[in-house]
């Protein structure tokens, strides 16, 4: 069977069923996925570029009358394919909690304050080299009901399109050295330690802006056509 995007790349993903993450128990298929060759339907994908993004959508600190509270940060990096090539003109969407760990979503019940100057949503398009950049505030950790005293490590949710419908990626970017990593079943649903490390941004002193904002670098790696991934080991 011909897969234009080698299917072995997907072994980096979590298995659908990861029992420590309770919500996965009733929402993971029991039956095996059915392999199928990539047809034109899978090899093409939605093309959304600059017309989708408004001026300032990549600066989450400037979407309201005042500045949000919290630690201002820059998050930047490249969207690449697995072969190391930059993926140009790719839409990157982010959403996140505020600095107190509270989402504006109406169903978030965490008793931490909302910030009238922070929505927590952003969009940008990678440039010709695959580079993207956001300005935001560092999200707080927040509690959730998965198990006793469960807290999510601070994270930014990301959505990326890439070249085709099968390179679509939704993930979460974490911050380096978070003490909550060993206790988070979502982070640890990724079986391979090296793959988990690819979800953690790195502190970027070189691009930290003096007197203004810390910088974190996060490269997003999508499936590539020529990838020859290692088998699981």
């Amino acid at each position: 069977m011909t897969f234009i995007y080698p299917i072995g790349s997907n072994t980096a993903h979590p298995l659908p069923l990861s029992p420590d993450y309770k919500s996965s128990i009733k929402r993971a298929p029991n039956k095996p996925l059915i392999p199928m060759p990539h047809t034109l339907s899978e090899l093409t994908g939605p093309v959304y570029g600059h017309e989708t993004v408004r001026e300032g959508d990549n600066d989450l600190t400037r979407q309201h009358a005042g500045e949000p509270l919290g630690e201002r940060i820059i998050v930047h990096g490249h969207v690449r394919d697995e072969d190391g090539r930059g993926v140009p003109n790719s839409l990157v969407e982010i959403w996140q909690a505020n600095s107190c760990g509270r989402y504006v979503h109406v169903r978030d019940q965490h008793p931490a304050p909302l910030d009238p100057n922070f929505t927590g949503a952003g969009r940008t398009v990678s440039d010709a080299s695959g580079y993207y950049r956001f300005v935001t505030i560092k999200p707080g950790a927040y509690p959730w009901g998965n198990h006793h005293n469960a807290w999510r490590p601070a994270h930014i949710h990301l959505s990326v399109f890439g070249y085709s419908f099968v390179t679509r990626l939704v993930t979460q970017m974490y911050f380096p050295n978070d003490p909550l990593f060993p206790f988070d079943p979502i982070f640890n649903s990724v079986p391979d330690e090296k793959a988990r490390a690819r979800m953690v941004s790195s502190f970027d002193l070189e691009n930290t802006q003096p007197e203004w904002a810390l910088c974190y670098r996060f490269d997003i790696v999508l499936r590539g056509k020529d990838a020859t991934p290692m088998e699981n080991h």
Partner: protein
Amino acid sequence: MQDSVKPDGITPSQTVGPFFKYGLTPTGEYAWNDAFTNSTLTPDVSGDRIRIEGRVFDGDGVAVPDAMLEIWQADVQGRFADPQDKRALPNASFRGFARCGTDKDGNYSFETIKPGAVPDPAGKPQAPHILVAVFARGMLRHLYTRIYFNDEAGNAADPVLALVPADRRATLTAVREASKPVYRLDLYLQGDNETVFFDV
């Protein structure tokens, strides 16, 4: 990381979580722009306009109120709005993509057109179909399925449906209502009626 360094693998998937709506599918409820809606329709689009609707259920048969479906499809001539489809015509503003979050009862719907036939890798026509990516809280990676249409004779010869056990093909086949161009298909993430998901 240097620009020239080959990554040691892809960025793993993580769940879309329960709180994606204000960012990905705000539909006017949040202070954010609706870059995407549940419609692919444009004023000049050609083809038969249809609605596809249904519900999303978990393994207990309970409605999933925090799922997101994305669709990707060809136009009425079977061409994709992507320059990688070398046959693509620079004709319409049709883009073939839409996004819908489920409501509290697990309902989703899409306003779109019936796609044309797309060739398989051997050049044989596939039956008209729409690709679906399914995201939800509790789903650590999104899963891919397809929507076919019960009134298409080409289903019998479709090379992808042929890979699916006959008794599971109904989970991929939307059923047209008698009186209007509305197709229904419920998705089951798990269980006896589990939707067929593809390993792509």
